[in-house]
């Protein structure tokens, strides 16, 4: 039996600033994890990744990653790497945690 699909979001780094960004439902980029559009099938995820990669003048290194999803449908980072990317380093109050 096929494993159930784990919802995914698309993330990348901003070309100019280098910081972590997320693809939104409108096909734009947000600096906030919760704004990311959630793919619920592999086809959707592949399609979103193609949309992201079509913007090489804006982003670097797009990839999709498994995400947790709140009851109301809001994505939350699951793996600790994505938690750190969405927060910033743990030794200084810098990065996203400071920009919020």
């Amino acid at each position, binding site marked *: 039996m096929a494993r159930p699909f784990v919802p995914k979001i698309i993330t990348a780094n901003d070309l100019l600033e280098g910081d972590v960004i997320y693809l939104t439902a409108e096909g734009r980029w947000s600096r906030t994890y919760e704004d990311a559009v959630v793919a619920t099938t592999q086809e959707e995820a592949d399609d979103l990744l193609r949309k992201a990669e079509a913007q*090489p003048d804006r982003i670097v290194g797009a990839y999709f990653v498994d995400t947790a999803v709140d009851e109301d449908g809001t994505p939350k980072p699951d793996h600790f790497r994505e938690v750190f*990317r969405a927060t910033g380093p743990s*030794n200084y109050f810098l990065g996203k945690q400071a920009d919020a």
Partner: protein
Amino acid sequence: MYTYNEFDEAFVRSRVAQFRGQVEKRLDGSLTEDEFRPLRLMNGLYLQLHAYMLRVAIPYGTLDSRKMRQLAHIAETWDRGYGHFTTRQNIQYNWPKLKDVPDMLDALADVGMHAIQTSGNCIRNVTSDHFAAAAADEIEDPRPTAELMRQWSTDHPEFQFLPRKFKIAITGAPNDRAVVKSHDIGIRMVRGDNGEVGYEISVGGGLGRSPFVGKVIREFLPKADLLPYLESIMQVYNLSGRRDNKYKARIKILVHETGLDEIRAEVEELFPQIREEFTHPSDELLAAIEPHFAPPAFVEKPLGDYEAALAADPLLRSFVETNVVAHKHPSYAIVTISLKPVGGTPGDATAEQMRVMADIAERYSHDELRISHEQNVILPHVAKADLPAVHAALRDAGLGTANVGLISDIIACPGMDYCALATARSIPIAQEISTRFNELKLEHEIGQMKIKISGCINACGHHHVGHIGILGLDRAGVENYQITLGGDGAETMTLGERAGPGFSAEELVPALERLIDAYLKVRRDRQESFLEAYRRLGVAPFKAALYPDQAKDAA
């Protein structure tokens, strides 16, 4: 100190101008990321977890106050007011914006610095003993040779596209402070049968996923033959090194798979022909470089006040005991400034601290500073009479931590707080260990201890050669830390042995406490270091302390 000649200056400036054009082309869309990536890496610019990262070379770890002040200026102007000194004697800026990087490189070029050879599959910037030209045990200053290798390797047309990166380190002293046998080529300056100075050349050392201790390929190489011999090794590697698998592409794998004797035979066969192609023997080239490294004019200062201060001030005494070592000049000392404050990030310095270190170096250390692979900063030439003033100035800047060589003097790579390759964090682990053992007030009781932490298998944190090595991994979505024991990065280089299953972040420090407690119980006396006790007793008592439940099960 080596100062750039017109050729060096023009070369660095032209590289900055080229890169400025490349950034513009990337920003206007005429270069894709795939095209741009190798170009930015050739200029030390990485894309990390949260931002770009610029890695700046500090060749053989030597710099003066002007350079250090410029590093501070760059940190403040284009970054977040600090820099991270690395295990490769580099400094890394963690938050530059792409559009600013050409300006940062220009600012570096203003003081004869650059980010060339800090990335990519080239010969990387040569590293060396941070006590060079100051150490009492030294045969000869290794830095002229390091500089010669820099001139030879920079932009060498044959070695721009090696199978993989290539690291060379050199030490001029029998006590190896540059971990030379963990490098692709490791060089020790040695004396020949007639007392003349030459080189012992090792090849195929490395850490990372397949760690190897370098093997001696030539026991004594005359100075005159240095560059042709190195070029012979490079040609053999460039031709035969594997390009089919990134993880098997380093020369250590070639040496391991082919065998040292075979590699040696190939190198020696090439060597006479390559030597013919060099127009100047290497010792002649060295003679032209050596005046740049002339020792400073040491001055005798009376020691009366110093001895009185030492007797009166216990903090100074503690600092001198841990952070100060013998200089070749009897009235001088070598001071290590610890960048490992209790609970701090190993290797980080603020712009303000960089300026303080620059000021102190200018006033008290013949304007010289060094960066060590252990992520500390060295004042190589301090008159003993000036030690009280140096210590006071360091303390005022939060740089007076007296812990060099002790359990809180930890090497840690940036780990998953910054690095895109990391599988777990390193920095918080180092912070926790240093905070905990400071609370226990056991640091001086424990004595000599090198803890080295890597946040992935690439081993930038040298965990294989830590007395206690810690490797951070991702185990089923959770950070997990493996412990290796008995590693040694000195001239007696040994790879540590994995102790057993890994620990969660929460379990790790308690496990280390048990380990240290066991050492304190089993050591012969206070003189026997952890490493010595480990070598005498083997892994068993330490393993039992790390895994008490297993020990119980076996009983």
